[in-house]
């Protein structure tokens, strides 16, 4: 079985901020990547100053940003699940698990990247992470891919311990940066323009850290 990465996240930009560098490294070494993106981030709140979006146009803008970021990272296959932002935890789980299971059987990934259920802050992250792990658990033990779970809840390390995978992504910092900038609707507020020096200082630190390392927890399914 050749290597193939399957990424499952709910929002356009989840693939970039949490693991864009890791994915770029895989892509550079020629490993194919399939990304299942759950929603179009319809309920995002950054409309820009000056405005570049409103509630009704945001999904189209974020969809275009998603495609641009995937290109930057080197994600060749993008599957949009067509769910709605902030609603995944309320959906009937069965059809979603079935869909992910079907994709798992087609793609036969060696590695799955998703959110760590319970420790990924946004209810959509926790819900889709859980559904993904449920789908992986349906495969026979020998067919199951490794799961890298992404967690970032405050104090999550107190409960789940330190991450066992810490990737140095500095070699592809420029790629991750390009992907972050592709998600303009999400990055503009985080990285304000240079004239706001005071605001800029702490965000600069957050920014540089994000371009150096990415961390994951190998998830054991039962």
């Amino acid at each position, binding site marked *: 079985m050749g290597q193939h990465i399957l990424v499952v996240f709910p929002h356009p930009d989840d693939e970039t901020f949490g693991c864009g560098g890791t994915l770029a490294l895989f892509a550079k070494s020629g490993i194919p990547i399939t990304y299942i993106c759950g929603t179009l981030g319809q309920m995002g709140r950054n409309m820009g100053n000056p*405005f570049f979006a409103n509630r009704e146009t945001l999904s189209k803008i974020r969809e275009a940003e998603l495609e641009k970021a995937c290109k930057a990272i080197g994600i060749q296959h993008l599957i949009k699940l067509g769910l709605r932002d902030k609603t995944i935890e309320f959906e009937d789980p069965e059809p979603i698990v079935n869909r992910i299971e079907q994709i798992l059987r087609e793609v036969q990934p060696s590695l799955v990247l998703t959110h760590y259920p319970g420790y990924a802050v946004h209810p959509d992250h926790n819900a889709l992470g859980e559904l993904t792990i449920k789908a992986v658990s349906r495969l026979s033990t020998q067919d199951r891919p490794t799961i890298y779970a992404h967690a970032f809840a405050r104090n999550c390390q107190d409960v789940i311990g330190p991450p066992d995978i810490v990737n140095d992504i500095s070699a592809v910092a420029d790629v991750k940066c390009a992907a972050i900038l592709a998600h303009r609707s999400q990055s503009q507020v985080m990285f304000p323009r240079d004239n706001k020096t005071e605001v800029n200082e702490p965000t600069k630190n957050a920014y540089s850290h994000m371009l150096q390392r990415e961390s994951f927890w190998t998830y054991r399914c039962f």
Partner: protein
Amino acid sequence: MHPIDRSIVQPALDRFLNREVYLHLETTNGAYAAHRQESKMTVGAYIRNGRISFIRGTITGEGPYRVGLKMQDGWVYAEGLTDFDLGQEGKLLLAGHDEEGRLAVALELSMEPFEL
């Protein structure tokens, strides 16, 4: 969107009077408000494609603005509205944004269902 001008928004509201219309009403302080410790709680609520009919609809305030829609059996209310958009046929979009363009409240009316 553009800064609210009551002389444009009031007649726009009136065009939806006494008709079965679709409502999007939302308020949020951001999905990461508590995580980023910007607030003790993450709070938000939305209704999308609620079907309502109102007999009186008014925009008030000097900015940010408030809108109240009086229905036969109740009310729809929003405050903190700063901007409007009439660019899409049959739709009135109203929203309240902070200085960085982050949406905090939205009240939208449409003759047709909003996209899901």
